[in-house]
């Protein structure tokens, strides 16, 4: 439970951090909140020679609406999401998820950017950002680029970030009127990774027809996944209980969970179905009351 020796850098700016990444390449790892990386280092599953701690970079922890997006700086803490009045008012899916990530002491350090950049399908924000159809802003030596969330997660712990790039911002399109969202998560105990979880973000028009729909699933596939068929089944449809149930069953069928101590494949599929059904219903309720 003691990491291998490593060197430590604490750049003051994103530019400095990128320069360090360029210099050290794959021998270096970015550290922000540390709640994914440090446990892996303690188990010596990760043995980086150099840690580039970006947590001291100023001005990267904002949460604000601008240019049609909710912009979240990569160093915004989970606890800041929980405490944000803006999030509480307009982003119930994000608030649900932030409240259910690990426990308060973790949320006081862990960052949204780190949660995504780790590329772990067991983390909660990937599914949330899939549901929101968010964009990732990556900054590197060649400047900034925008990566649509659907192109960000490439596989097991793999993202579209280049070795010399840093995730600097997350952009969520500001939801139109009539929108609602919900995150439903089952965990064995507080602080555990999800047995399964479903993130839903949707917009319902005056006639009860679903206009936008995003559904992301947590910890039931190698890479974070979108429940595409479920979305297609709901989009532009009037949302009846029967239809919601069908969409939920599709999510259960389409996910690809591993059997482990959290449950068998059948159990996880069943949980995905139930959580998806419940998340859609809560999201609709919230959309109606928005």
């Amino acid at each position, binding site marked *: 439970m003691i990491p291998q020796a490593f060197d430590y850098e604490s750049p003051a700016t994103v530019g400095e951090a990128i320069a360090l990444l360029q210099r050290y390449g794959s021998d270096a790892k970015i550290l922000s909140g540390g709640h994914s990386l440090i446990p892996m280092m303690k188990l010596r599953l990760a043995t980086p020679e150099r840690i580039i701690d970006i947590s001291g970079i100023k001005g990267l922890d904002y949460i604000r609406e601008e240019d049609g997006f909710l912009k979240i700086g990569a160093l915004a803490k989970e606890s800041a999401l929980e405490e944000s009045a803006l999030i509480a008012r307009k982003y119930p899916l994000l608030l649900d998820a932030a409240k259910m990530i690990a426990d308060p002491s973790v949320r006081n350090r862990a960052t949204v950017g780190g949660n995504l950049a780790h590329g772990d399908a067991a983390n909660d924000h990937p599914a949330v950002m899939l549901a929101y159809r968010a964009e990732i802003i990556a900054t590197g030596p060649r400047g900034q680029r925008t990566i649509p969330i659907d192109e960000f997660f490439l596989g097991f712990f793999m993202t579209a970030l280049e070795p010399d790039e840093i995730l600097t911002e997350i952009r969520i399109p500001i939801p139109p009127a009539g929108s609602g969202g919900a995150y439903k998560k089952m965990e064995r*105990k507080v602080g555990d990774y999800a047995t399964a979880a479903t993130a839903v973000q949707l917009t319902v028009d005056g006639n009860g027809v679903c206009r936008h729909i995003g559904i992301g699933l947590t910890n039931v596939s190698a890479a974070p996944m979108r429940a595409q068929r479920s979305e297609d089944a709901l989009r532009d449809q009037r949302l009846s209980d029967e239809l919601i149930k069908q969409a939920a069953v599709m999510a259960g069928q389409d996910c690809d969970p591993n059997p482990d101590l959290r449950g068998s494949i059948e159990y996880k599929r*069943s949980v995905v179905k139930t*959580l998806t059904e419940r998340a859609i219903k809560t999201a609709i309720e919230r959309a109606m009351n928005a």
Partner: protein
Amino acid sequence: MFCNTPKEISGMGHGMKRKEDARFIQGKGHYVDDIKLPGMLYMDIVRSPYAYAKIKKIDASRALAIPGVLAVITGRDLEKYNLHWMPTLMSDTQMVLPTDTVMYYSQEVCAIIATERYIAADGVAAVEVEYEPMKPIVDPHKSMDPNAPILRPDKGKTDNHIWHWEVGDRNATDRVMANADIVVKEQIYIPRIHVASIETCGCVASFDPVEGKLTMYMTTQAPHAIRTVVALVAGHVGLSEEKIRVVSPDIGGGFGGKVPVYPGYVIAIAASVLIGKPVKWIEDRMENLQADSFARDYHMSCELAANKDGRIQALRIKTLADHGYTDAAANPSKFPAGMFSIVTGSYDYNTAFTEMDAVYTNKAPGGVAYRCSFRVTEAVHAIERMVDVLAMKVGKDPAQLRMENFIKKDQFPYKSALGWEYDSGDYHAALKKAMDIIGYDALRREQAEKRQRGELMGIGISSFTEIVGAGPSRHFDILGIKMFDSCEIRVHPTGKAIARLGTKSQGQGHETTYAQIIAQELGIPAEHIQIEEGDTDTAPYGLGTYASRSTPTAGAAAAIAARKLRDKARKIAAYLLEVSEEDLEWDVNKFFVKGAPEKAKTIQEIVFASYTNHPLGMEAGFEATHYYDPPNLTFPFGSYICVVDIDKETGEIKIRRFVAVDDCGNIINPMIVEGQIHGGLTQGLAPAMFEELIYDEDGNMLNGSLMDYLVPTAVESPKWETDKTITPCPHHPIGAKGVGESPTVGAPPAIANAIVDALSHLGVTHIDIPITPQKVWNILREKGMVETV
């Protein structure tokens, strides 16, 4: 509740705040890992990745090349001093370090000694060990197969059987079973779990080569016993008992897991003796979970016989006990299965038989008594589950069936079918109180309505009888040492006192409760009484703290030592007041002359006189010691009721309410008792719904970290509702019984019974703990209640 001293004195019954908490809540507790000695070295341990393997080669050259790595100690090194094996508390033998074979996953293979903890960890990573893996025995049911490998040929064994134990009347039980109207049967498994105390185990072994003296700072619940064990194990290398000092500093939870001697302690001692410098060894969390003694792991075949009305007639239980590769339990010598024979429970019947066979497997050794006063958790789970199974069979409400079978108040002292003499109890009153608090009848009506709607709700009861306070010397010893305990009180001239005891608090609040006992007896304010435990150079000999024995044994010793002092105080008061001793009466903190209460001497005046003006011919000073040999064990009891709601789609279980009515006799500090019960209930919830050490077929532990070994937190815990009845212990000097373990023992069956009750209309009679959402879902699927997608 008994309480007749003013708050300033705070004797029995006062909920005074814990004296020790000032340092704990300020982060100023002093634990073993806080100890830093000049020149101290650090030890870390290489552990086996296999459950059963030959060690072909240990190549330490890369480790030894790391600057700061001073030594790599192997079993072959220890063999030269005949220190490679050690006895367990159950008179079995355990490897300190292996010379040729590893017997379980995560077993110690060799130890690194380095100048820094981080360097020691690098040393561990650099040692290369070549193994030849062998097929392990993981399932205890297969350990006696004819083709099973013999795990302990070193002991001359020809099979993997450790011991057979039985108690009761086999023939009479067979007869009653054969003729009974009803016999219900269940296979009940109590899973292997771990105490998972917040503080892991560790030590600083400090050998002074000049004085030839070893000081051993360590996380032990039984410092005196450890001193004797070390003298027995290492006497041949010159460590005789007067040269050994064991110090237990503050301990962050013990729960039975800090009773045994672990190999790491012995290796650290050997390293310190060989190198002549202090050596610190602190386990990490994974080592603690994977290698330290487990608890439970009983496979029980249970049968309960009754007449057609549900009147219990006989109990028969056959158990298979998995002890891992050595029996490293920590039971009294004559009780290889601890107090399991309390298994007849709170019920009045005179025929029972229980037998048990213990076997070796390739798993971590044990099993310790995890907050269960020696295997009482297993026993209580068996009987409390079986009583519910019987109630289902005869179609009676489980509360009613219990009421009809309880031992009655006027039957105490009650001789149980398996030979215990229950001291006192009022089981009907405790269950009635719990039912009233929770609104039992209304809950049953609600449940019936919910069933109509297809909703799953269950109500579970556990009416347990505990057996704690080992124990009377005619039956109880550990390695031959009788299980008395002790207290020495010294009162200083100004009327302030220090008391030392043979027990060792690990969070129980001894510094407060023992002071209150002495305050009760002598009238010296509890805040003026310093309590000290854990240093074998100063404290009187005792067997330590576990099995809820501190109050029944050392607490009694404190009361009696104080009474010896009160007898002396009477003599001094008579001398000072110039009256005869018979003319004096005691009142809280003073002796006064009968009929003339203004003529009085306070305890402080009397104590001062004992140093300044004591009667001619009397010994000066105000000190007393008592070694207390209890005449019997104490039998706390209680009734718990749990209400659960189950999510019929996911199988998730929510405990809606949990009412615990406990009876631990007279109460010393009600706040501490309530705290004990809250903690114990949570540790009862843990195996009921969360905790189990899981091995795969190769003997690898699959959940050897807190990521997957699910210790419940405040979030998972329901709001515990506690209450009490008080039935004093008739044989204890202050009428107290133990309490620390009652809730751990009583809670699991209440929860399991509630969950089974929620599913009983589907024909479910038993589910093994831990009952997880997946297990419930599997049942719902079998019963066609949920569809797969």
